[in-house]
Structure formats: structure tokens, C-alpha cells
């Protein structure tokens, strides 16, 4: 009964979305307020019905209702409750339902909170959002109904892929989707603006909180996925340039560009058509990601079942949404006037460079990811494009970006004072060079690229801190006065400082764990000792352990330093009989200085195996935790910026003149 309610709720949501895709936009062009206002009700109604459907599916998972095919295929009665709940979005159908739920949530968010947005713009935006809803709801109902029944019901389910039975990965899709799909509302705003033919600073202000919210969760989602790969896959890597990773990374890169470009539109009424284009492309890349993950187009290692019919349907959706919006863009964008003027050395120019580098980097990742497909279509040859290509192309661009990231915040709008600028950054540059030289001296040796990266990270960190210190006039005035100034600074400003510093911290983590990682791989019988990075590790043996739905070999490793007990680690190799697969559960001792990372496996060679030995893989990854800490700083920075008072209240009505009016010195 409950699954039928869920199914029915989806149909109702589709009906509402159909109404919303026509009525408000028609109202906007006819000036019919009632029609425009209807979007309010339909958007909230959609979220209600999709939530009911989602809850119905979740209920089926919680009670292990094996009359529902989706539950049979992705759950098992012995599975821990947490993963039963997470199983709701573990499959293609369930995750698509989550996708649609988030789409509805963002639409409802604009309907609910967007009281400051003019009725026409809001009506058009919500109609565009409903077009996307209609596309995905029909996709779900026609090709991927999550409520399909199975008869006769089997006694038990096939279990969720054990790799997905993990806290990090249970939370990864919701965050990632919140980011992916969050950009949909920005896309809808952009299309609405193109239909209206008007983009101005006020538009940029309405869009900003939604862009930030999406960007923050995408950041968190990617970081979480990376963290999961780090501790779960058993060899301590955190980024592999796999197509599935790349398709989540591209919207992030372009979304970051959008975030910065929208600032210029907001403050200076410039870069308007570029901001619109970024808004369209960012969501297009999100859609592209959904397409690639679910169509089996590229060789990737993702779990979703591949179905050409589904692939074609999503490609159709892509053609309509991306093709349509870009065609609209080609038609309308040339009519937009260019906006404010600025000098080659100014905040605008800095943000322009930032945007161009981010766009070039996105293009590189996109091209590299799709190149095997393109070449195969053109010549029939099959090649691989792997990490060596991406690292070679991407890292230099990021280093260049870091230089401008440090510089940008010092620049003032319209035109910067070069002499003053040099004066302010000289000290920072010297400090960064000293830091990199000190690293060179202390670490003696290591890849040259790593030192360039250290230089970049140090420069970014010091420049960001220095700029913040200048703003609050730290050490120029009394500390109390500085504190007062810090309090008076808008939160968005602190947000920027934190996020930029976060990038510097994140870089440090990447450099440390790539450039100075050490590794020991040994066959270990009980009693074997391994020394790595100053730790003495004794393997005490392995024992069989029974989990709720798995059997594990659990190793015991006693870690000492200078004869003193540091900790005991228990890496596991798990076997899930129902899903017939194995997972590696690494055991990690985390400190800020670095991670001692251990994993255990059965040796390949029978001889070693029969001798009672295990393969131990022990890594020391210096500074690796800075990657996650940096990501957290990025997220906190984004949240701070999001909580800025100016974003929530008093976002301007359409201004007659650009915001530059407010700057008296011009």
C-alpha cells in the first residue's frame, strides 16, 4: 500500500510541475498576478508530494519490504539500520528520486524565501525550474520507477554493495546532489533573465545565496567522497581523475568561477553575459555528470546499472535543456550592454583572470574526460587518458590561479594603485620565498614541482592573512580597535578570507601527502615488526570477526614510538557473503602531522598464504589531514558568506543605477 501511495504522490508532483511550467510564465507575459502567484503553491506542493514519495521509499527500505524490486536489489534484512536508510538513495532509481526531491526543495526555497524578487522574475524562474522537474519526473516514472513490485517476493534481498555501506559514502550522494541540483535554480534564474532580457546587479544578488548554498554542499560532497576513497580503498589515494570524479569536479570548478563572476556583476554591473553563461554551463555540467554516470558512456567504475534507453532519455533531456538554454543565450546575450569600465590592474581584472583560468581548467578536465570517446568516434582508436595527463595539464593552471588568488583581494575596484599594491605585497612575497626555502633546507630533496607548490601555498596563505590584517588594521591600531573592525567587517569578507586560506591549507595537505608519502609493504607473520616514519609497528596476528552481515579478518597492530605505546590499530578485510564481495577497512592513526595508514590483505601467493602470513600495507602520509581541514575551511567560509546579513535582508529591488552609486569616492 505504502509504495502505491509513493507512486501516486509522484504522479501528483508531476501534475503540479506541469501546471507550474506553464501558468506562471504565461502570467508573467500577460501581467496576470494570480497566475504568477500560483507558482508559490505548486512549488510547495511539489516538495510535499516528492517528500511523500521519498518517505514511502525509505519506509520500504526500513521495514525491508521485499515486495518492492528496488528494496530486493539493494537491501538485506541483516543490514544495519543506518544503511537500510541510506539504501534509499543507493540505487539508480532512489538516487534519482533524491535528485528530484532536491530540485523541488530549491524551487520551493525560491518560492518561500524570494519575497524580495519581483513577481515576473520569480514566476519565470519557477516555471523554468518546473520544466526541469517535468523532465526528470517523467524520466523517473517512465523508465526507472522505484516502486515497482516483484512477485512472488523473495525471502531476502541482494544486499547493497558493501562498499557503499559506509558512513562517508552514505552521506556523500545527498551532499553532492544538493550541490549538483542546487545549481538548477541558478540556471533557472539565468534562463528567466534571458527571457526577460535583463541582467543587473539586483539579479546577481538574488542568485548569490543559491549559488553559494549549492557550491558549499558540492564542496562538502566532493571532499567527503575523496575522504571515503582515502580510507576505504586501502591504498591511501584521495583523487584518481576517474570520469565519475571528474564530472563532479567540473561543476565545482565552473561554479567557483560563477561565484566570483557574479560578484563583479553585483558590484560593478559588468561581466553580465559571462555570468549568465557560467550559470547555464555550471548546471549543464551537473546534468552531463548525471548523464555520464547513468548511461555507461565512458568506462568508469560506477555501480549504476547501465541501460541504453535511460541514456537516450537523459540525452534528450540534455539536448532540450542545455541546447535550448544555449540557443536562447546565443539569441539574447548579444543585446546585453557590457557595463562598467575598469583598468587592467583592478579587482575586475583580477576576477577576470580568475574566471579565465578556472574556465580553461574546466575545459581541460572536460576535454580530457571525453577525449577517449571523441577519438574513438573519429578514428576508432581506443586510448586512455589518466592521471598523468590531468596532473600535467591541471596543476600548472592551478599554480597560476593561486598567484592571482593571493593578489586579487588587495586590488580595488575599477583601478588599483600599483605602487601601494607593490608596497603591501612585497613583504608577503619575501615571506613566501623564505618559507619555501626553509622547506627546501629542512626536507632536503623531493620533487621541484612540490617546492613550487609550497611557494604558491605559502604565498596564498600569507597574502590572505595580510589582506585580512590590513582590513582590520591589525597592529596599526590597538587590538581592541582591530577586534571592533573585525566585527564590523561583513561576514562575506571573513568568508572569503577563510575560503582562500582553506585553499592554501588544502594545498599543503596535497603537497605533503603526494610528495613525501612513505610506504612499506610486507608479508607479516605474527610478531613481524615494521618501522616507518619513526613508528615501530608490531603485527600481533589476525583473527576472524563476525559482523552483522559480513565476516572479517581483523589484524592487530601495536604501534610504538621510542618504545612507548602510541596506539593499537585494527585493519580489517571484510567479506560480505550475500553480495559476494570484499572490502578493505583500513585503520588509521590521524594526527595533524600525518596519518599512519594501515591495511591488511590475503597474500596472492598460496605459499605465503599457507605459511600464515598476511600482506600488510603501511603508509605514512604527512599532512594529509590538511586536505580535509582545508575543505572544511572552504565550507565554513562559504557558510559565513551565506549568512551575511546583506544576502538575507534588504537585497535590493531593481536599482535604477548600478551599485557603484554607493561608492562615494568615484
Amino acid at each position: 500500500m505504502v509504495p502505491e501511495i509513493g507512486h501516486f504522490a509522484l504522479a501528483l508532483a508531476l501534475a503540479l510541475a506541469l501546471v507550474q511550467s506553464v501558468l506562471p510564465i504565461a502570467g508573467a507575459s500577460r501581467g496576470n498576478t494570480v497566475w504568477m502567484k500560483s507558482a508559490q503553491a505548486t512549488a510547495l506542493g511539489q516538495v510535499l508530494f516528492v517528500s511523500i514519495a521519498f518517505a514511502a521509499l525509505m519506509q520500504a527500505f526500513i521495514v525491508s519490504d521485499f515486495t518492492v524490486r528496488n528494496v530486493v536489489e539493494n537491501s538485506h534484512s541483516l543490514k544495519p539500520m543506518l544503511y537500510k536508510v541510506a539504501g534509499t538513495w543507493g540505487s539508480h532509481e532512489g538516487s534519482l528520486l533524491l535528485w528530484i526531491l532536491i530540485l523541488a526543495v530549491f524551487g520551493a526555497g525560491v518560492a518561500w524565501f524570494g519575497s524580495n524578487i519581483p513577481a515576473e522574475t520569480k514566476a519565470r524562474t519557477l516555471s523554468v525550474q518546473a520544466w526541469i522537474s517535468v523532465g526528470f519526473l517523467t524520466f523517473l516514472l517512465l523508465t526507472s520507477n522505484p516502486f515497482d513490485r516483484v512477485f512472488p517476493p523473495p525471502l531476502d534481498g541482494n544486499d547493497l554493495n558493501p562498499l557503499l555501506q559506509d558512513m562517508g559514502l552514505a552521506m556523500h550522494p545527498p551532499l553532492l546532489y544538493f550541490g549538483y541540483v542546487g545549481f538548477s535554480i541558478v540556471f533557472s534564474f539565468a534562463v528567466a533573465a534571458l527571457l526577460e532580457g535583463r541582467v543587473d546587479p539586483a539579479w546577481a544578488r538574488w542568485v548569490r545565496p543559491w549559488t553559494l548554498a549549492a557550491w558549499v554542499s558540492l564542496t562538502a560532497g566532493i571532499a567527503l567522497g575523496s575522504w571515503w576513497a582515502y580510507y576505504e580503498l586501502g591504498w591511501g589515494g584521495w583523487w584518481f581523475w576517474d570520469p565519475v570524479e571528474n564530472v563532479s569536479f567540473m561543476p565545482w570548478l565552473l561554479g567557483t568561477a560563477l561565484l566570483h563572476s557574479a560578484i563583479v556583476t553585483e558590484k560593478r554591473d559588468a561581466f553580465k553575459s559571462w555570468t549568465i553563461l557560467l550559470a547555464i554551463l555550471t548546471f549543464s555540467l551537473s546534468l552531463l555528470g548525471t548523464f555520464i554516470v547513468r548511461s555507461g558512456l565512458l568506462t568508469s567504475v560506477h555501480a549504476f546499472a547501465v541501460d541504453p534507453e535511460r541514456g537516450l532519455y537523459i540525452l534528450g533531456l540534455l539536448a532540450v535543456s542545455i541546447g535550448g538554454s544555449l540557443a536562447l543565450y546565443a539569441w539574447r546575450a548579444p543585446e546585453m550592454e557590457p557595463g562598467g569600465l575598469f583598468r587592467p590592474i583592478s579587482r575586475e581584472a583580477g576576477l577576470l583572470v580568475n574566471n579565465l583560468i578556472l574556465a580553461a581548467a574546466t575545459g581541460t578536465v572536460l576535454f580530457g574526460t571525453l577525449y577517449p570517446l571523441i577519438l574513438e568516434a573519429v578514428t576508432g582508436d581506443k586510448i586512455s587518458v589518466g592521471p598523468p595527463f590531468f596532473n600535467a595539464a591541471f596543476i600548472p593552471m592551478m599554480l597560476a590561479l593561486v598567484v592571482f588568488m593571493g593578489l586579487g583581494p588587495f586590488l580595488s575596484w575599477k583601478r588599483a594603485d600599483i605602487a601601494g599594491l607593490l608596497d603591501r605585497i612585497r613583504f608577503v612575497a619575501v615571506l613566501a620565498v623564505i618559507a619555501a626555502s626553509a622547506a627546501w633546507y629542512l626536507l632536503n630533496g623531493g620533487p621541484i614541482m612540490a617546492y613550487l607548490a609550497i611557494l604558491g601555498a605559502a604565498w596564498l596563505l600569507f597574502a590572505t592573512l595580510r589582506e585580512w590584517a590590513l582590513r582590520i588594521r591589525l597592529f596599526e591600531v590597538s587590538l581592541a580597535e582591530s577586534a571592533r573592525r573585525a566585527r564590523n567587517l561583513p561576514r562575506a569578507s571573513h568568508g572569503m578570507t577563510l575560503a582562500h586560506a582553506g585553499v592554501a591549507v588544502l594545498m599543503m595537505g596535497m603537497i605533503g601527502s603526494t610528495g613525501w608519502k612513505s610506504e612499506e609493504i610486507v608479508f607479516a607473520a605474527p610478531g613481524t615488526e615494521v618501522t616507518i616514519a619513526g613508528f615501530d609497528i608490531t603485527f600481533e596476528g589476525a583473527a576472524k570477526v563476525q559482523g552483522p552481515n559480513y565476516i572479517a579478518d581483523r589484524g592487530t597492530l601495536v604501534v610504538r614510538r621510542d618504545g612507548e605505546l602510541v596506539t593499537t590499530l585494527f585493519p580489517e578485510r571484510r567479506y560480505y557473503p550475500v553480495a559476494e564481495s570484499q572490502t578493505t577497512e583500513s585503520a588509521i592513526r590521524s594526527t595533524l602531522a600525518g596519518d599512519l595508514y594501515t591495511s591488511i590483505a590475503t597474500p596472492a601467493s598460496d605459499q605465503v598464504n599457507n605459511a600464515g602470513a598476511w600482506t600488510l600495507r603501511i603508509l605514512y602520509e604527512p599532512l594529509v589531514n590538511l586536505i580535509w581541514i582545508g575543505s572544511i575551511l572552504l565550507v565554513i567560509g562559504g557558510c559565513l558568506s551565506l549568512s551575511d546579513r546583506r544576502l538575507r535582508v534588504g537585497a535590493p529591488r531593481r536599482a535604477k543605477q548600478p551599485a557603484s552609486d554607493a561608492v562615494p569616492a568615484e
Partner: protein
Amino acid sequence: MRQLIFAFCIGLFPFAANAVEPDEMLTDPVLEQRARGISKDLRCVVCQNQDIDSSNAGVARDLRLLVRERLVAGDSDTEVIEYIRARYGDYVLLKPPLEPATYALWFAPIAFVLVGVFVGGGVLMSRRKQEPFEDLGSEDENTVSEILRQNEAGDAP
């Protein structure tokens, strides 16, 4: 996610190995270092999108052993890679070789950057040409920029 495919590998091959193992490793640390480097640039043919160094497929293990054998026999890194490429094709190279079929790939990032420089330069020039204001004296400039800076304090991204 990449490990999902492991199940597939185990189905096809008898040995569920687990990435590079101690008994495969060379005693000469320099050679071993080179072997690891080469292994990271070769793609496992069974487990999609994974290098042979971290793959647990049987064929990956054989290839790792082969790489080491060739190195011990005195091959250079390039020769080892060529040896395997001759048997498995360009497909196994995670770093695509620079050849006519991959010019577009390798030069694309450079092209993107050049386009960026070109576009950026164009925008900067066009915005400056119409510049309506004149330079101030250096003293004024300092005063103004100081005021600006204090004002800007409220305007950060």
C-alpha cells in the same frame, strides 16, 4: 567506486591479489622505484580505469612481474613501456603518447589558456579604451586609494 569492479576481476581470475605485493618487489630500491613509477602509468586491462600498481587482478600482477623482469634485464623505462604497448596497444597507457591522434588532447590545455589570454587581453583593452577618467597626482592618488580601501572593507566577496 573503483573497487566495485574488483568483484568482476575476482570472477575472472583465480587469484584475488591485492595491489603490489612484497614477493613481487625487487631488492634494488632504485629499480623498484622505477618499477612502481612505470606500474602507475599502465592501465589494468581487466579493471577499467585503474593502474596495474593498485589493481588486484591476476593479469595486473603478471604485468607487474613482467615490468620488473624487463627492468632487471636492463631495459630503460621507455623500452619497458614500449614492450607492453606492443602487446596491449595504446589503450594501456594512462599517459597518452604524443602523436598525431593525441595532438588535440595534449595541445588543448595550451589552446584553452591562449584563448583565455586572448579574450582577457581583448576585454581589458576594450574596457580601458573608453576610459573617461584621468590620472590624479600621486598625492591625490594615495588619499583616494586610502579612502577607497577603507570603503572597500565592507565590500569583499
